């Protein structure tokens, strides 16, 4: 082959390639523009033309701000882009400038603004990605416009259905509670002999009914509590109170259960434990729950101990038992909702919501909860609470509870 032939062949290939590149450039479902340092658009693909409703001639060699109808300028009559006083605050301009200065790309800045596009009735969402490029030793940026509307709509729908789900659970639980209260009260009346004397066999089966109605009530209350905590509708009443008294109250309440399980319940509160800022009802709920778990999972003649002491400006409360323990692989999951540790051959009643509720309540107190356990040796849960209560927690920040899981 001669040199001329080779050159012709190369030119042909280059032409073909650039032609097909042009076609691909126009076909991508993403808006693409090549913009120079004066914000002038040098190349534009069809996506931008379609969405802005502007022709190729109208776009080329004009400012990108004009092409995208300027984010700040609200109506057509206002002066051109670069003329108005707010131009320096424009997110589009400042980001392009930043990319030219730093030569580092900026990815996926999200905009929810329908000013950009022809059909203003659409609630359009999109993201801008700006990448620096060099063409013939000149600096440019490639501005990519990605339509996020479908994703945003899906997110909106998801949020809506989550809300509906929560409302549904809450309504159903409330509706269940009313008849359940009547059933419970009816059983109580008969069991207490208000409606006449009972035979032993009758009492036995009514007590069975009552046990199960109580279990159902506890489940519904847990579901409602959890729902309220999750949706932030649970009200907390932080006041200054004596924590030692609260711990004693809880232990006193749980003594009966310990006795019926033939488990010893010991209380050991350091004399330094006293006044603290917390929601007493909620902390009683937490302690009752931990104690009830400890008693449930400890065989007869076992021992449960609740102890408390002050470390710096926090108080640590530990509920320890010498019961069956939690398998290592289950430990990380026990704070998950509806998670129940499998106990072969042993059916221990529970809702699977107790510990998630406990964790959420402690979280709202800006406290921590941790667990240590060894199979057949026992389990101990420790909660810590700041003595001064939650200090102006950042409500927007999803502060997740620190859970130290060891052993």
């Amino acid at each position: 082959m001669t040199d001329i032939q080779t050159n012709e062949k190369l030119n042909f290939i280059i032409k073909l390639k650039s032609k097909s590149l042009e076609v691909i450039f126009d076909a991508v479902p993403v808006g693409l523009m090549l913009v120079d340092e004066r914000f002038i658009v040098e190349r534009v693909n069809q996506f931008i033309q379609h969405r802005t409703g502007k022709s190729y001639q109208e776009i080329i060699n004009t400012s990108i701000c004009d092409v995208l109808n300027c984010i700040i300028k609200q109506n057509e009559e206002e002066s051109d882009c670069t003329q108005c006083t707010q131009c320096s605050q424009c997110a589009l301009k400042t980001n392009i400038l930043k990319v030219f200065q730093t030569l580092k790309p900026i990815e996926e800045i999200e905009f929810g603004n329908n000013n950009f596009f022809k059909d203003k009735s659409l609630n359009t969402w999109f993201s801008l990605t700006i990448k620096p490029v060099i063409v013939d030793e000149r600096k440019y940026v490639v501005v990519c416009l990605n339509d996020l509307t479908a994703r945003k709509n899906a997110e909106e729908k998801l949020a809506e259905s989550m809300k509906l789900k929560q409302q549904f659970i809450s309504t159903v639980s409330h509706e269940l509670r009313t008849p359940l209260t009547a059933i419970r009260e009816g059983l109580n009346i008969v069991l207490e002999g208000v409606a006449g004397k009972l035979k032993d066999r009758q009492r036995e089966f009514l007590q069975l009914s009552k046990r199960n109605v109580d279990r159902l009530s506890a489940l519904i209350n847990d579901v409602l509590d959890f729902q309220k905590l999750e949706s932030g509708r649970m009200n907390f009443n932080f006041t200054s109170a004596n924590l030692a008294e609260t711990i004693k109250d809880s232990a006193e309440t749980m003594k009966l259960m310990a006795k019926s399980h033939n488990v010893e319940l010991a209380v050991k509160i350091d004399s330094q434990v006293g006044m603290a800022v917390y929601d007493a009802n909620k902390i009683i709920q937490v302690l009752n729950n931990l104690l009830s778990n400890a008693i449930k999972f400890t065989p007869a003649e076992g021992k449960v101990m609740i102890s408390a002491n002050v470390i710096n400006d926090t108080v640590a409360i530990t509920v320890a038992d010498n019961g069956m323990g939690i398998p290592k692989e289950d430990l990380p999951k026990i704070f998950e909702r509806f998670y129940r540790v499998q106990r072969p051959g042993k059916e221990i009643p529970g809702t699977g919501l107790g510990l998630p509720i406990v964790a959420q309540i402690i979280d709202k107190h800006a406290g921590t909860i941790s667990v240590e356990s060894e199979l057949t040796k026992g389990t101990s849960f420790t909660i810590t609470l700041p003595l001064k209560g939650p200090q102006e927690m950042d409500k927007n920040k999803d502060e997740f509870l620190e859970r130290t899981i060891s052993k």
Partner: protein
Amino acid sequence: MLGLFKSKAKTSTILVVDDEPDLVSTIKARLEWNKFKVETASNGSLALEKLETITPDLILLDGNMPVMTGFQMLEKMRQDSRFKSIPVIMLTAVCESDNIAMAGSLGVTEYVTKPFEYPQLLEKITQTLEK
């Protein structure tokens, strides 16, 4: 409990006003077991009619009822010199905080939040009657 019956010569009459018949019949059974005389009404309007014929020592009043709510009935009652001084215990759902504030301005200080345990209600009744 016993102290109450010793100090009161006659049996106290309690008017239970609630639109849930099952709740009313359980409360009625309990109160009668505790030797109270019980009258019932299923809404505020019917309760006001009842007040024309009997004068209870205490009214247990549900907040939310059809035809006439407990709060509306309370307002009417307090305007009538005959019923002004009858003590009232409101039976309310937790979410009615605005109405509770209004009832407070009409002199109601005792509340029992639904669902309640009977001993808790009985304690409130005893306390109110002893005043």
